[in-house]
Structures are given as structure tokens and as C-alpha cells.
């Protein structure tokens, strides 16, 4: 009897080990689960007042998700970029630039572009969204073109773009403080049954779309091919340059959506600080989610969990009262630890 128990334990262990190394979402999911259980415990589960406990649990979660929606969307794009073997350091600056563009268009003051053109209200919002998304797409394409046609490494191109975009934005927005119409804020703050969850919905929709794109479309699969073996992909008829160009353009587009969410949440933007360090957070989420920096391997859902693990941990540290300066260190531990745990056994 006892030997059998031991055997089944061993089986469970080897099953667990195999799953852990072979199914990336398995390890990430478990890590996430542990985080959530910890968080639930910290919030103090109480049988007597389940209702109010659940209320505060839910509120806490909505807060976490909403606060991370923008960076979460950017992390998804970053995952695709890294899967091609590239990187985009310019996301924070692109966010500021497209955000500033949105605010200039919407400004209710004398310099608001759409206002000057006599466009206000709903039509102005629609035009703004279209133009801003287009601008993000163009900025991304510009980066993509420098990488594919100019043959400059992505790290260099986006490092340069990071400096250029922010600096230009700061210069032109000097002493100009556009006012975003209150109605525009509804885009992010519209309440569904008392909950402000619009950003979460946008994030969920985009996650679903990108998940589908990465799994089921020619473009999505070609991203993996390009990242894993560019030469072989080219010799298999994959238009490598087009795939890369489209990935960076998509990245720009996603950043502009994040910018719109941010502008409509707060109604303003700090052009010198907004989005700073965002590229690193996005990369961290992707890496925790199992994306390989070498390209060829990455998971959209993994990145969502990666983002959430980091977010829940921040929340926990907050609840525990860990000094703010130390929190970044925990983030660093999580990033390195996640990669250590996901490391495959040396193939024999």
C-alpha cells in the first residue's frame, strides 16, 4: 500500500515536472495562483461577512486590472516584437507623442485643432481616435522601415526613436496645457453597474484579438518563423521585411490605444515623465510570461499573466507596507526568478 502511494507521488512529481517545463502557461498559471491566494489571505477572508469581503476583493482587483490596462496592452505588442527577435524601447515616448497629439486635437481652448475646424462633441472624438491610432501606426511604421529598409538593429533604432519622440513632444508642448473635454473622459471612465471597467474591457478585447492573430493567422505564425530562423523563413517564402514592418507598426498602434486610454482616464499627461520605464515593464511582463528574448518563442496569454503577476505582487507589497523604493527590487527578483523557473533542463 505504502509503496503504491510513493509511486503515485513520484508519478505526480514527474508529471508536474514535465508540465512545468513543457507547458509554459502551467508554471506561470501556478505562480499567479499562489499570488492570488496570498493576496486573498492578506485581504483577510472572513466567513461572517463574505459579502463585504468579496466587495473589497473585487474592488481591489478592478483597481489592479484598470491600472495595468494600458501597459498591459503595450506588453502584448512587445511580446510580438520580441518574438520576431527584435525589441521596442520607444513605447514610452510613442505613448507621450500620440497622447500629446490626441490632446492637441481635442483641446477645448483656443489652440485645439478640431475646435478651430469647428468640430466638437462625438464626431470630434471619433476623428481624434482615428487620427491618433493612425499616428501611432505611422510612428511604428517609421521604426519598422528604419529596421527593415535601413538595416539598423532594432535596439538602436528604437533607442534613437525613444529620445527623438519625447524630446520633440516636450519641445512643442512647452507651456501649452490642452484641456480635454469632460465627455471624452467617458471613454475610460464610463461605468458599467457602478464599476469603472472600460479599460479592462479594451485590454480583454485586444488580448483576444492578438491571441487569435498569434495562433491562427499567417501573420502570427510567420512572426515565430522569422524570430526562430530568419534565413529559413525567407527561404520558405516568408516576406521577412513585411512581417517585421507590420509588427512594429502594430506595436505603434497598440501604444496609441494605450495613450488614448491614459488621456481619457486622467484628462492630462505629464510629457516629461509619462511612459518612462514603460518599455522595461512591458519587456518584464513578456519575459515573466515565457517569451524568449532570442525570439521565436512567446505567448500572448503568458504575457497577460506575467503582467498580472507583477501587478499583484505590487499590490501585495503595498498591502504589506513594503517601502516604495524597495518594490522595484522585488520586481527584479520576479523577472529573474521567472526565467530561472522556466529554464528547460539541458537537452540530452
Amino acid at each position, binding site marked *: 500500500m505504502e509503496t503504491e502511494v510513493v509511486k503515485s507521488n513520484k508519478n505526480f512529481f514527474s508529471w508536474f515536472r514535465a508540465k512545468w517545463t513543457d507547458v509554459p502557461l502551467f508554471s506561470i498559471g501556478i505562480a499567479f495562483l499562489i499570488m492570488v491566494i496570498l493576496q486573498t489571505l492578506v485581504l483577510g477572508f472572513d466567513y461572517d461577512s463574505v459579502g463585504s469581503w468579496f466587495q473589497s476583493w473585487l474592488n481591489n482587483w478592478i483597481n489592479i486590472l484598470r491600472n495595468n490596462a494600458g501597459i498591459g496592452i503595450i506588453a502584448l505588442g512587445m511580446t510580438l516584437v520580441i518574438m520576431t527577435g527584435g525589441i521596442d524601447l520607444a513605447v514610452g515616448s510613442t505613448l507621450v507623442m500620440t497622447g500629446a497629439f490626441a490632446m492637441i486635437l481635442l483641446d477645448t481652448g483656443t489652440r485645439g485643432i478640431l475646435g478651430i475646424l469647428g468640430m466638437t462633441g462625438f464626431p470630434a472624438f471619433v476623428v481624434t481616435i482615428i487620427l491618433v491610432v493612425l499616428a501611432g501606426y505611422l510612428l511604428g511604421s517609421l521604426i519598422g522601415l528604419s529596421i527593415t529598409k535601413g538595416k539598423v538593429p532594432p535596439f538602436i533604432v528604437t533607442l534613437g526613436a525613444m529620445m527623438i519622440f519625447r524630446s520633440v513632444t516636450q519641445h512643442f508642448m512647452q507651456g501649452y496645457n490642452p484641456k480635454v473635454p469632460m465627455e471624452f473622459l467617458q471613454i475610460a471612465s464610463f461605468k458599467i453597474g457602478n464599476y469603472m471597467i472600460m479599460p479592462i474591457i479594451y485590454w480583454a478585447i485586444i488580448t483576444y484579438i492578438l491571441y487569435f492573430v498569434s495562433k*491562427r*493567422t*499567417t501573420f502570427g505564425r510567420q512572426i*515565430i518563423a522569422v524570430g526562430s*530562423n530568419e*534565413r*529559413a523563413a525567407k*527561404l520558405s517564402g516568408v*516576406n521577412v521585411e513585411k512581417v517585421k514592418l507590420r509588427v512594429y507598426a502594430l506595436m505603434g498602434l497598440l501604444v496609441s490605444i494605450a495613450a488614448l486610454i491614459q488621456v481619457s482616464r486622467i484628462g492630462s499627461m505629464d510629457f516629461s515623465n509619462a511612459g518612462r520605464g514603460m518599455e522595461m515593464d512591458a519587456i518584464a511582463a513578456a519575459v515573466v510570461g515565457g517569451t524568449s528574448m532570442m525570439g521565436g518563442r512567446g505567448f500572448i496569454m503568458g504575457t497577460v499573466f506575467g503582467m498580472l503577476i507583477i501587478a499583484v505582487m505590487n499590490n501585495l507589497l503595498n498591502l504589506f507596507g513594503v517601502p516604495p523604493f524597495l518594490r522595484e527590487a522585488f520586481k527584479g527578483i520576479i523577472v529573474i526568478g521567472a526565467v530561472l523557473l522556466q529554464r528547460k533542463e539541458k537537452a540530452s
Partner: protein
Amino acid sequence: MLIEMKNIRKSFGSNNVLKDVSFTLSGGEICALLGENGAGKSTLMNILGGVHQMDDGTIALDGNQVQFSTPAQSQEAGIAFIHQELNLINDLPIYENMFLGRELITKRGSLDLERMIRETEDVFQQMNVNLNPKTMVHDLDASYKQIVEICRAMMMKASIIIMDEPTTSLTDQEIERVFTMMRTLKDNNVGIIFISHKLNEVLQVCEKFIVLRDGQLVEEGMVSEVTTDDLARFMVGYDVRTEPLLREKRVGSEVLRVEGLTYKHTFRNIDFSIREGEILGVTGLLGDGRSELFQVIFGAEKMSSGKIFLNGKEVILKSTTQAINHGIAYLPRNRKENGIIKDMNIFENASIVTWPKFSKRGVIQTQQHEANFEKQRQALRIKMGKLTDSINSLSGGNQQKVVLAKWLSAGPKLLILDNPTQGVDVGAKEDIYDIILQLAEENIAVVVLSSEGQEIIRICDRALVMYHGVIQGEVAGEEMNLQNIMSLATGGQLTR
């Protein structure tokens, strides 16, 4: 030095790779280690080289029992393992590679460049190699990298050298140089274990042979007493054909014609054409420009000048995608670098070319695609597990068939095969030849690029022989023999 391996067993998981293999080699002997892919050759050698540990058995050097738990220990005992994937650092010069890990240092602690260069030169001189030690390794072609590795083993005073398919990417001239080197080593009482799929070479250079099949030693003996046919039979366990595969030839209209094709300094003024149902061989020595020529025709590189006609109409191919749309398929050489994508599973590797074809508005239609692959899998007799298994789980031959399958599912009119049997064992090689003949039967124009004259003679209707970027001559029928091919490939003329 005498090396004895006795009753070696090794399994990976439930897979028994070596089942009780014993083998001996003494200094001054060249022994061929033969077997199909997956027969256990590499595992046996990896055990000797300290890469893997055996489960059971003994290794003795000159009668003293030894155990190697790391490659370094094995090296220290005088065993040098020259791997198929060469262990050279591309971004360092030759001499630093020669001393990698045991660099010479001056009294002041800096690298002693002069001495390293001088000692490298000494070895080169001894081995009759004409190379400048200061050359960067990335400027060497595959053959010279091999030679540098052999010199490194010599410098480390190895008494046993294991060579894992050293001649795969070498030209005949360079192979001869390697063989000369091996004979010099032999005279210096060095024992050599020579792993190769090229049986002719085994007859040329080895004295002893052992054959592994399914992890067991099935034959051993003296090379002088056997023929290549015998060796091939030992390896696969049944008779293997080597005669030219004759077939009824029915050629149709012209598929491809090129005129005056030139690409940088690689090749110039290439004119030829190929018809439906024809098998055209293109051969020559390494660096003759044939791979580049067909990469240009496939749109992977941009030509400098010239014209390409498909079905009589001139086309300008700017990308591989366009070439595929025109019905051209190109199976590249060096499967690992150019053919397979290691992060994708078998099915994806087999379908990447046809994703655009089998998709609706960018969404891949998996079912249709799987049905298509299933057909290919049966036709090509691919041995595999699940569709979603890693491509790395397949043997070399089956990987090559998967790469072939991805092209066949595109329904090409012109199929270019660059070294299609590279790193493929005897059995799978025959399968691939059969497939090529079958495709020609189906009116596809097939181009076979190969440096093995024997292969060209076996399956091609006619062959172009290239030399330094030009077509030196064309052979067909009776004229298509090894002698003529070799003479053209080395810049000579046909002797009529």
C-alpha cells in the same frame, strides 16, 4: 595507445540507444564507424568523448580503466572529438581558436600572441596547411574550419581523434587534403575513428570498420575485404541499389530558361534551360556558385544582370514569395540553418510555405492543411509521432522529408533541391531518390544540386558542371561519368 570499450549500454528514458556494444582501437589505426542515423554512433562517441555517461560497461586506455564524466577529462586522456558542428568561435582569429581555453600567457599576464601565432604556424606547416593564423574564422569556408579543428586536435597531442562526418561540406580536393592529413596522423601512431555516410571514402582511407544498427554492433572487419555495397547492406540490413535509376523520359515544354545571369562575383553569364519532367543535375566543387545561382533564381538574392524566363515569359523575381507564386520551390542546403525552424512543430514546419495558400483573409485553415499534410506524410513515408511534436524529435532523414513536404504541398512546377541527401542515412536517401523520380514522372521540372557525382549520375538525365561561377560543361548519357564530371569541375574540358 589502445582503447577498449566493453559492453557499453546507454539509454535515454525508455529509448535503449546502445545495447551492449564493445569495440577496440589501437594507435595508428583508422577505423570507420558506420550506421544509419539513430543507430547509436554519436552516442557511443559522445560516451568516449565524455559528453554522455554510460549506464553500464567499461572503458580502458592501455589496459587502465578510466571514466570520463566531462569532455575535459576525455581530452586530457588524449581523445579529441571533432564534432559535426564545429567548435570554433567565428569572431576570433585562427590562432586564438587554436588555443581556446588554454591560451598562452606572457610573464606579465597578457596573451602571448607571438608565441600562439608561431606555434599555430608550426602545426600548419607540419600538416601542410596553407593558412594565415591571423585570418578570422568567419572568413574561412566550412572546409578550412574543419582543417583548423583537425590541426587543433594535433596541437593538443591527441592520440585518438574522433571525426564526426568531417567531409560532409568539403570538396573533393579538400577531402583529399583531409585524407592526406589522416594518413600523416596514422603514421604518427594516432588512432582515428571516422564517422561517415560516404562509403567510398571509407574504402579509400580506413582499414577497419564497425557497423552499428539499432544500438548493436552488427558487423566488423577489414575494409579491404568488403565493397561499398556490402557496407550499405550491413548498415540497413538489406540490399541497397547503387546503379543509375533508369526511367522512361518524357519531357514536355520549357519551364525555366536563364540568359546571361550574373550575380556579383559569385557567378556570371549563366545560360541554361530545363523542361517539364526533366531531372537536371548541377554539380561542381564547393564555392562553384551553384547554390547562389539557384537562390537568385528563387528570388532570395537580387541578380546583378541577366534574364529569367518562366514558361517562356520573362519574369523579375524580387522576393521568395513571388517565386513561390510562380511555382518555384527551393529546398535549401544545410537543413539546420536554412531548412527547419526549431521553435515550430512538425506540422508547422511542413506547412509554412502554404500558409498563405490555405488561409482565408489571413486566418489559417488548419483542417484543410492537415489533410494535405497527411497525404504528403504517406507519400513520403515520414516516420513521426504527433503533428505537434517538435521538429527536433525527428531523425535527419525524416526532417528532410518534412522540408520536402512543405514544398510539395505548394504544388511546384519547378523544384530545386540543393543537396537533398545531406546528412541523410542510406535508407532515407533511397526514399528521396524515389520521390525525385516520381515527381519528374508527374511532369515537374526537378533541379538537383549536389557535390556527389555518384548521386548526380544515379538520378539525373543530364548535368551542368560548374567551375568558379561559370558553367564549364554539360554531360548526359554515356558522357555522364565521374571522370568527366571531375575533370569539368576542376576546370578541365571534356575528353571525347
